[in-house]
């Protein structure tokens, strides 16, 4: 299973953190520090796999963001690269030519998309179309609720 998924920028700023096992807050901060140091310190044409404690670390850089995940030792690293790639594709489809700023200003959407793709550290759906449809449907449910409410739209969700 995947133990965690982190997204961070070239300067080491965290943009998303998903933890699939219970980790104390202090430990989380330490892991994030270790990951950013290790990954940002890699030379440009290195391979995308690392070892850290008893986990396999797989990372990939997409534009200005590093996608970094920690896996159990028996996981297939090449498949993990495909998992990261699939997530990027989903983000790209949703935001239309996704960039780091999209993820910064719509971080909660990035989480919702991730939660449709991975569950408990495992892939839950392998079809891109099915995933996009369910994400759209959830959004529409949200919109419908807002439309039907008495909320002041300035204060509601975009």
């Amino acid at each position: 299973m995947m133990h965690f998924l982190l997204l961070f920028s070239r300067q080491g700023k965290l943009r998303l953190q998903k933890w699939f096992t219970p980790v104390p807050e202090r430990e989380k901060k330490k892991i994030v520090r270790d990951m950013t140091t290790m990954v940002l310190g890699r030379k440009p044409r290195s391979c995308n796999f690392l070892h850290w404690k008893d986990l396999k670390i797989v990372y990939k850089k997409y534009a200005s963001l590093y996608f970094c995940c920690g896996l159990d030792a028996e996981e297939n690293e090449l498949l993990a690269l495909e998992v990261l790639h699939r997530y990027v594709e989903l983000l790209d489809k949703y935001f239309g030519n996704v960039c780091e700023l999209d993820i910064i200003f719509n971080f909660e959407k990035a989480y919702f998309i991730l939660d449709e793709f991975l569950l408990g550290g495992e892939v839950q759906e392998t079809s891109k179309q099915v995933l996009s449809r369910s994400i759209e449907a959830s959004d529409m449910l949200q919109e419908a609720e807002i439309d039907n409410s008495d909320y002041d739209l300035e204060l509601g969700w975009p």
Partner: protein
Amino acid sequence: MSPSVRLQEMIRVIRGARTQGEERGVIQRECAAIRAQFRQADNGTRSHNLAKLLYVHMLGYPAHFGQMECVRLIASPRYNEKRVGYLGAMMLLDEKQDASLLITNSIKNDLSHSSQYVQSLALCTLACMGSAEMCRDLAPEIDRLLRASNSYIKKKAALCAVHMVRKVPELGELFTPAARSLLSEKNHGVLHGAVVLITELCERNPDTLEQFRKAVPELVLMMKGLVMSGYSPEHNVAGISDPFLQVRILRLLRILGRNNDTASDAMNDLLAQVATNTDSSKTAGSAVLYETVLTVMDIKSESGLRVLAVNILGRFLLNNDRNIRYISMTSLQKIVQTDHNAVQRHRGTIVDCLKDQDASVKRRALELSLALVSAVNIRSLMKELLLFLSSCPPELRAHTTSGIFNAAERYAPSQRWHIDTILHVLTTAGGDVRDETVPNLIQLITTATELHCYTVHKLYRALITDISVQSLVQVACWCIGEYGDLLLRGECEETEPVQVTEDDVLDALETVLQSHMSSPATRGFALTATMKLSTRITHNVDRIRSIVSIYGSCIDVELQQRAVEYNALFKKYDHMSQSYMHIVVSEEGPKNGQTPATLVMDCSLCYRTSSGTGAPSLGTRLLNSFYSQAIRLLNT
């Protein structure tokens, strides 16, 4: 109270802060406003206030005061509030916090909600942070969902069950029947979840494993379907139909086929088919092939299939993609003991990877090369290893040198080759060798009696070239002290002899003694060697005496003590006869060519070296015999 700003507005303001202090100020203000809003009654802004708090939390600021708000929002009837509430719970709560217990009831209710998207939120949160207690509580609910719901929910329920089994293994029994029936589903998401669940159940319970072995034919058919199916737009990734599901099926087959001939037989053909038909030009295909290889090597497969698998790994070694080369080598490392000959066939490619740019690939190639050393290939492989050593990254040097020494010790074709190899390593990377290298090399040289002349010549030449590598200098000094007479003789069969005078040799030793690069231990070796030469040379004994007496007042206490003792030996030496110096008791016996005097000095050296490293050793034992004898002699 200041009016709340939209989430995105707040993010913009925070990012616009020019200093850390300014950022802190903005965030403190916002958090104060959010706190105040939380205390108020429902005013329709709760969800986006929590969202703002979650953003602040991701920047590293404390957000625990939002925990109760998560609980409240989860209980709300509105979908968008639940959505943020559950997100907040996953980010701010974990099973160790008390607040997490409070959401159990909400989750239970939401698992039966009429909207599948609300059910989905509950399932996701449960699988993310469900404690053992919550899992025990809600397991029957999950079992129900596994049996009777649409595929959207079933796939999520399956993975939720996986989490529950990880937390509370006894729950495995509850889910086994439902898991079995899920295998007949057509939906890929559900199948994937089912395979993951069955894998988890089989890994934890040998009885369940036995039960699911009967499902091997079904799994084989499923896999065949995926491999042979035509292009399926929904699941296609670079020409592979649903690589995620394929890999998981292969992993499950691995577990089922392990240590079981029947199951392994049943999957043999399929594995051969996948291995042959999968296109590995892209990562997706390589991932499937990789998993296939791992499965083949782990089950009881036919030898032909095993060879096929190793050949795939060999092909991977030649792949342009560095990642594929890396995993190929990690896999080869796992099987190099069991399938040694098959891996040997790819030795050439592995050795080439020593020259790869990537440090991880280099490290793997080194491990593999060392594992592949044998009596047959030692000469050629050692050439490559020594070449590697001269340009290898610093963090690998120590490992490389010890690997080379081990290999040389096990498979050295001749003593001369062995000595040459060690000297080569010392010259290239003498600073990265372990402490035992020096005494081990001395031992080796001593036993290679026909090569003493050759060795002392080589070491003398090395010494006059460079005295910075301590290990090399120490051995060279010892060798000169021991076999200096062979050096001065000016003739040697194995190599070009040097023409040196006694003064030249003493010059070399004195340079070591005086150099600031020499460590105290090295100086000790040099001093002892100088002393030992007094028994081997004829013309310059006075020079030796004067060197030794100078060090009688040296600042280094070690050196001083040694020099004083040697001086004392000098004074007594003239009066000692061979019979007094005849020392017999020894565990090894006096070594070839050693006079009793030099034997005593050697033991003194051994003792100091061993006590310096704190390890009781041969030196100490020898010392007990000899040092007391020497003292006795000095007093006669």
